[in-house]
């Protein structure tokens, strides 16, 4: 009874959100539209990262590498190879996914923190390499891309819808996973990888798939971002903040759920806009502080805390804080 009603409410809420999202670009001002476009991209990060992180249990600290690869794929494709944007965008997703498969096969053999630190390292290393391949990538100086044709409002709206489209695609993929055999395999790996092998799950294949899927979306977002900003440089598109943000937003909203990363992103963006966007120099420090707070107070994110209803969530938060203060 409650289940059916809950589901109906959820569907209604989703339809409403989608309608709002589609209408927004024609209603809000430019600043807000930029903010929303960024938010959609961050939400996409969180949802995609969650495929490997929340669903499969492998926390990657280096997903920025796929964003950067995607960005450079589009930049190089358009600037050096003269390809149209859409072709380059496909290439960006593919390049990121292929790179994920290539490093995934060795690296996914590692568990937990080993995996996390290696992914962190790979991110750093690729950034360094790209900065040094000056002929191909423009090196530290970066690359400039052509500008999207059309007026300012057209540009803003176009990129808004590109980000929205990619986000919706990622949500569909996660939804599909959660309701399919592969999704069960991933979750089993998260819960107990050895036991998962014992019931016939080909863990390597599943992990590599999750890695490649999440990488692909990051690549596509990177590609769109490159065209949006029309200028990219290694320090920017391989910025570790991208990885960190993905993790924080997913942790805030709840690992392993469909909607959690979305909620976490919205929450984060609101906090970010009203608290520390005024103090850009301390942005990273605030992220660090937020990570600490989340880990100490909400180790499982809001959604898990909210399972017991609002009162339950409050009680649990108080208990966590009290435990910390003792």
């Amino acid at each position: 009874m409650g289940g059916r009603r809950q589901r109906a409410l959820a569907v209604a809420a989703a339809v409403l959100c989608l309608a709002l999202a589609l209408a927004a670009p024609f209603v809000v001002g430019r600043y807000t539209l930029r903010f929303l476009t960024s938010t959609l991209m961050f939400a996409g990060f969180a949802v995609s990262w969650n495929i490997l992180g929340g669903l499969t249990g492998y926390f990657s600290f280096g997903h920025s590498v796929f964003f950067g690869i995607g960005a450079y794929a589009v930049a190089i494709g358009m600037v050096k190879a003269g390809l149209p944007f859409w072709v380059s965008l496909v290439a960006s997703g593919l390049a990121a996914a292929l790179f994920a498969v290539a490093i995934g096969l060795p690296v996914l053999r590692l568990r937990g923190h080993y995996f996390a630190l290696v992914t962190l390292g790979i991110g750093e290393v690729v950034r360094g390499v790209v900065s040094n391949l000056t002929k191909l990538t423009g090196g530290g100086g970066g690359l400039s891309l052509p500008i999207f044709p059309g007026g300012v409002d057209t540009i803003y709206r176009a990129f808004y819808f590109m980000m929205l489209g990619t986000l919706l695609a990622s949500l569909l993929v996660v939804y599909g996973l959660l309701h399919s055999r592969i999704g069960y395999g991933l979750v089993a790996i998260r819960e107990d990888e050895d036991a998962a092998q014992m019931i016939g799950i080909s863990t390597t294949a599943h992990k590599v798939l999750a890695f490649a899927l999440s990488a692909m979306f990051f690549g596509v977002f990177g590609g769109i971002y490159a065209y949006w900003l029309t200028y990219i440089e290694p320090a920017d598109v391989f910025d570790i903040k991208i990885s960190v943000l993905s993790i924080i937003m997913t942790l805030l909203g709840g690992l392993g759920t469909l909607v959690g990363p979305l909620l976490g992103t919205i929450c984060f963006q609101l906090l970010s806009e009203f608290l520390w966007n005024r103090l850009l120099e301390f942005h990273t420090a605030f992220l660090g502080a937020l990570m600490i707070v989340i880990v100490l107070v909400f180790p499982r994110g809001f959604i898990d805390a909210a399972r017991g209803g609002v009162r339950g969530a409050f009680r649990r938060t108080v208990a966590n804080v009290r435990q910390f203060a003792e």
Partner: protein
Amino acid sequence: MTSLQLLVNGLLLGCLYAVIAVGFSLVWGVMNIINVAHGALLMVGAYITFWLFHLWGVDPFATIPVSMAGLFVLGYLLQRYLFNRLVRAPIFMTFILTFGVALIVENLSLYWFTAEYRSARPAYSSSVVHIGGLLVPTVRIALALIAVALTSALFVFMGRTRIGLAIRATRMNLESAKLMGVRIGSIYAITFGVGAALAGAAGSLMSIAYVISPVMGPPYLLRAFTICILGGLGNIYGALVGGLLFGVVESFGGLWLGTGFQDVIGMAMLVLVLLVRPSGLMGKRFYEI
């Protein structure tokens, strides 16, 4: 550049890497904490030396004890009041926690110290020693010697002092250590403090011969991690050997690949070792002297 010169350069550098790795390994081996802020702590030590040298003309070598003391206190406080909360939590939580601390420390340093490259090069740093056709800057020899001294001091500390024994006991058998009256919270804080002090010392040493910046931490963190894996977790001898080996490989690799790609060497080594022999070259998994 002859091979011998590269080898000597590599070994000298490797001594410094050993100090960095040994502190990291200690914290990991005893408390199962991967201190992602290790690089940031190293950076703080480097800046302590730099500012004392730059503002008050203190000889950089003389600042090393100050930097070590300062970092010990910082590390002790961090462990005591923050990280001790999560010692029994999944290791991943401490990873994120130390990561958050690293972000804060790096951001604040970037803001206060600016991103300029600095160095604490004293006037005598240009002197070189000629040994059989090799050119070795005296300062680098001094750094290597200090590094070796610090590592040896750690061995003595762990093997001969009461606190050192308490730390090893805590690692080997937490419950028994508790029953014997070891105050675990303090031991953990002291251990982390020692690890931080070593990081600080390494940072000070770095600032004397190399350039420093607020974002210098992460590459050293990754090197420390790689070296610990190479040498076997929690194994101090292993960290020493691993550090030397790493320095040599980087030295030769730098010639072959160019300095821009040096980090790739480290990463490649890391991935290779993790795949082939996760327990490290020395093969021992638990804390042993």
